[in-house]
C-alpha cells in the first residue's frame, strides 16, 4: 500500500520538478563524482550509466550500480518528490505568461543539465551530439514513413547531400584546403555563416528530394521505396565519382563549429517545426492522404502537393542533420551513407513508433545509447539489438510510442 502511494506521488511531479532533479543530480556528479568513484573502486566516472563498465568488467558491477543509484536515481527522485509542491506552483505561475516563456525556461534547465552532464567527459559529449543528430534524422524520416505512410529509403542520400553541401560551403570559405585552395573569408565569420551552410545543406537535400518526388508521387505503393532506394545509391556513387570533393577518400578538415549548443539548438528547432508541421492543417491532410488518398482527394485535399511538401520538408531536415554530422565528425566519406545507415535510421523509426514525435525521440535515443552501451559485446550486439527489434515488432507492431501527439502545453503544465 505504502509503495503504491509513493509510486503514485511521482505522477504528480511536473516536468519542471524532474528537470530540477536532473540538474541537481548532475551538479552532484560534478562535486562528488570523483571522490565517490574512488570510494567505490571504479577507475573513472561511468560515462553512460555504468553499462560499459559492467559489460567489460563484471566484478565492478556493484560499484557501478551503486554509483548510478547514488548519483542519479536517488537524488533525481528525491529532489523531484520534495520539490513537487513548489514546482507545481511555479509551473502554474509560468503558465500565466505566454506559453513560449515557460517552454524557454524548461529548455534552459534541460540544456544546463545536458551541458554539465557532457562536461564530465568528451566521450559523453560526442555520444550526446550524435544522439541529437540521430533524433533529427529519425524525426524527419518519421514524417514520410509514419505521417505520410509511404516507405522512403533515401534518407542516407539526403544526409549525404546535406553533409557534403554544408562541408563544401564551410571548407571553401574558411579553411585552407588542398582541394579548394585558400580560405575566402576570415575564420572569425565562421560561426555566423555556419547556419547558412546548414540551411544550404538542407536546401540541396530538398532539391534532391524534388527529383524523387516528381516521378514517384504520380502513383502510390512501393514505387517510392524503389525509386528512393535507387536515389540513395545514385547519390553515393555520384559522390564517389566526384573528384572535387575527394571521391571515395572523403572530405575532411571541416572547421569545428558544431558544438553542443549549436547541435542542441538545431535539434530543438527540428522537433518544434516538425511538431507544428504535423499538427497543422497540412499535417492533418497528410494523415488523410495516408489513410485513404481517394477520400482525401474528394475532401478537397490537394494530395500531390501535400505529399511533395512533406517529402521536401523531411529531406530538408535530413540535410541539416547531415551537415551537423559532418561537422561533428569533421570528416565525411560516401561509404558512411549506405545501406547500413539506412537500416539504422529505419530501425530507430520503427522501434520508437510511427506517427509520433515522442516515438522518434525514444527510438533514436534508445538505439543510440544501446548501440554504445553494448559495444563491448562485439558480435553479440548485432544479435541482441535485432532481437529487441523483433520483439517490439511482435508485441507493439507500430513501435514503442506510436500515434501519440506531442502537446507542449500538456507537457509543461502543473500536475496537481
Amino acid at each position, binding site marked *: 500500500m505504502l509503495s503504491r502511494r509513493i509510486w503514485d506521488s511521482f505522477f504528480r511531479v511536473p516536468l519542471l520538478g524532474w528537470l530540477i532533479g536532473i540538474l541537481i543530480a548532475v551538479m552532484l556528479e560534478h562535486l562528488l563524482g570523483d571522490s565517490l568513484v574512488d570510494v*567505490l573502486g571504479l577507475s573513472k566516472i561511468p560515462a553512460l550509466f555504468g553499462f560499459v563498465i559492467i559489460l567489460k568488467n563484471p566484478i565492478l558491477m*556493484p560499484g557501478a550500480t551503486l554509483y548510478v543509484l547514488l548519483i542519479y536515481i536517488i537524488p533525481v527522485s528525491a529532489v523531484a518528490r520534495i520539490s513537487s509542491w513548489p514546482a507545481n506552483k511555479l509551473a502554474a505561475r509560468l503558465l500565466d505568461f505566454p506559453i513560449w516563456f515557460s517552454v524557454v525556461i524548461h529548455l534552459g534547465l534541460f540544456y544546463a543539465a545536458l551541458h554539465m552532464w557532457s562536461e564530465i567527459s568528451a566521450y559523453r559529449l560526442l555520444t550526446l551530439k550524435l544522439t541529437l543528430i540521430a533524433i533529427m534524422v529519425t524525426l524527419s524520416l518519421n514524417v514520410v514513413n509514419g505521417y505520410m505512410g509511404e516507405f522512403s529509403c533515401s534518407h542516407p542520400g539526403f544526409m549525404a547531400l546535406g553533409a557534403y553541401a554544408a562541408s563544401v560551403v564551410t571548407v571553401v570559405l574558411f579553411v585552407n584546403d588542398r582541394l579548394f585552395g585558400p580560405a575566402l573569408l576570415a575564420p572569425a565569420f565562421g560561426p555566423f555563416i555556419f547556419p547558412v551552410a546548414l540551411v544550404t545543406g538542407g536546401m540541396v537535400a530538398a532539391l534532391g528530394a524534388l527529383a524523387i518526388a516528381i516521378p514517384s508521387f504520380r502513383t502510390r505503393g512501393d514505387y517510392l521505396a524503389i525509386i528512393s532506394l535507387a536515389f540513395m545509391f545514385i547519390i553515393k556513387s555520384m559522390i564517389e565519382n566526384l573528384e572535387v570533393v575527394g571521391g571515395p577518400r*572523403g572530405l575532411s578538415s571541416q572547421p569545428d563549429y558544431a558544438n553542443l549548443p549549436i547541435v542542441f539548438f538545431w535539434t530543438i528547432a527540428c522537433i518544434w517545426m516538425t511538431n507544428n508541421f504535423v499538427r497543422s492543417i497540412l499535417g492533418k491532410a497528410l494523415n488523410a492522404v495516408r489513410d485513404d488518398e481517394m477520400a482525401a482527394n474528394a475532401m478537397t485535399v490537394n494530395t500531390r502537393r501535400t505529399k511533395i511538401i512533406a517529402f521536401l520538408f523531411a529531406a530538408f531536415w535530413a540535410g541539416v542533420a547531415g551537415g551537423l*554530422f559532418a561537422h561533428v*565528425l569533421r570528416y565525411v*566519406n560516401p*561509404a558512411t551513407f549506405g545501406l547500413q545507415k539506412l537500416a539504422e535510421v529505419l530501425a530507430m523509426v520503427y522501434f520508437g513508433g510511427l506517427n509520433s514525435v515522442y516515438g522518434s525521440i525514444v527510438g533514436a535515443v534508445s538505439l543510440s545509447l544501446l548501440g554504445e552501451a553494448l*559495444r563491448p559485446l562485439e558480435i553479440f550486439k*548485432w544479435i541482441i539489438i535485432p532481437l529487441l527489434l523483433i520483439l517490439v515488432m511482435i508485441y507493439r507492431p507500430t513501435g514503442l510510442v506510436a500515434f501519440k501527439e506531442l502537446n507542449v502545453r500538456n507537457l509543461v503544465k502543473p500536475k496537481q
Partner: protein
Amino acid sequence: MRKVLLLLVSCLVIGLILSPCVWSKTKIIKVGINAPLTGDIPKVGEGTKYAAQMWLEDIKSAGGLEVGGKKYPVELVIEDNESKAESAVKVNTKMITQDEVMVIVGPQASSQAIPAGEVANNYKTPMISPWSTNPDTTKNRPFVFRGCFLDPFQGPVAANFIKEEFGFTKAAVLYDVASDYPKGLAEFFKKAWEKANGAGSVVAFESFTTKDVDFSSQLTKIIKSGAEVLFTPQYYNEVALIVQQAHELGWNKPITGSDSWGSAETVELCGKDCYGLFFSTHYAAAGAKGATKAFIDRYNKKYGYVPDDVGALTWDALQIVQKAIQSYGKITGNVEKDRKGIRDALANIKEFDGITGKMTFTEDGDPIKCAVIVRISEKGEYEFYKSVCP
C-alpha cells in the same frame, strides 16, 4: 518488497567489499586497440585482435613491461569500431578520455583512420595505424603514425616489377571505384606505368563498385583491349571472383595485385586459379626466416591459420609501441606527460627491425620500408620472390 530491497543492498555491500579497490591505484600501461571486429571487414579485426593478444601474452609471461628498470602491468583496451567512421571516432574518444590509454593501435582502414587520427592528434595521444595507406591519415598530425608504406610507393613498385619481370608494355587495370584504397592505388599504378611505357600504355582502365560480383563485361573489354597483364588492387573476396571469371573468359596472361591480396582467405576462395600469380605486399609468409617465421608459426599454432599482413603489421606496431615506451624510460602516472614522451620516442625510432622489414619514421610519421613481391606457389603458399626498397 522490503526483503528484496534488503537483499539487494546486502548484495551490493558484499560485492563492494570484494571488488578490487586496492589494485586500481597501481600504475598500469594501457594500450588501446581500435579494430573493426564487426562490420564489412571482420577478418581484419580478428587478425588485429589476435596479434594484440599474442603480444599481451608475451608481456604477461615476462611479468609486465620493463620500463626504466621497473616492471609495469599492461592492459589492452580492445574496442570494436564496426568498420564505421563515426564509431571509430567514438571509440578513440572513449579510449582517450575514459580509459586513458597511453597509445592507440588502429584503426586499420583509412576511412576510419583519417577521422580517428584527428581525434588522437587533438587529444595529443600517439596513435599508430598499422594498415592505413592514405596520406591524409598522418599528414600534419604529429601524434599519428602508420606501420606500412604508402600507395605512392607501392604503385610504382608493382608497375616496375611487371616491366622488369615480363617486359610487357600494355597493361589493364580493374579496380573498385567506390573504395578509396583500390582507387588510389590504381591511379598511382597507372601514373607509374605510363611514365615507363608512354601515354596510352594502360590500354584498359576499368572500374566497378563495392559488392559487385559479376565482372564479365569489364573483363571482356580488358581481353579485347590487347593488354598483356591485368593489375587489380582488390580485397580477397573480389580477387577470387575476378581471377576465376577472367580465366573462364579465356584470359591466360598474368594477373598481379597489391598488399590487399595478402589475406589468408585469398587462396582459400580462389583455389588453383590463383597459383603462380604475383602481388606486392609487406611480408611473405612462406619461406620466412627468423622472427617472422617464429611469429607465423606461433600464430598458426594458436589460431589455426597463417596470419595475413594485418596481423603482422599490428604485431610490428605493438613492438614499436613497446620499444617507444621503453626508450621513453619512465612512467610518471601523468597520462598527458607520458603520451607526449612516448610520441617523441616514437618519432625518434631509427631502423626498427620488425617482422615486416626495417623501418624508420619520416617527419610525417610514415615509415620508410621495403616492399616484398610474393608469388602464390603451387601449394597455395605465399612465397617470397623479391624485395624492392625505396
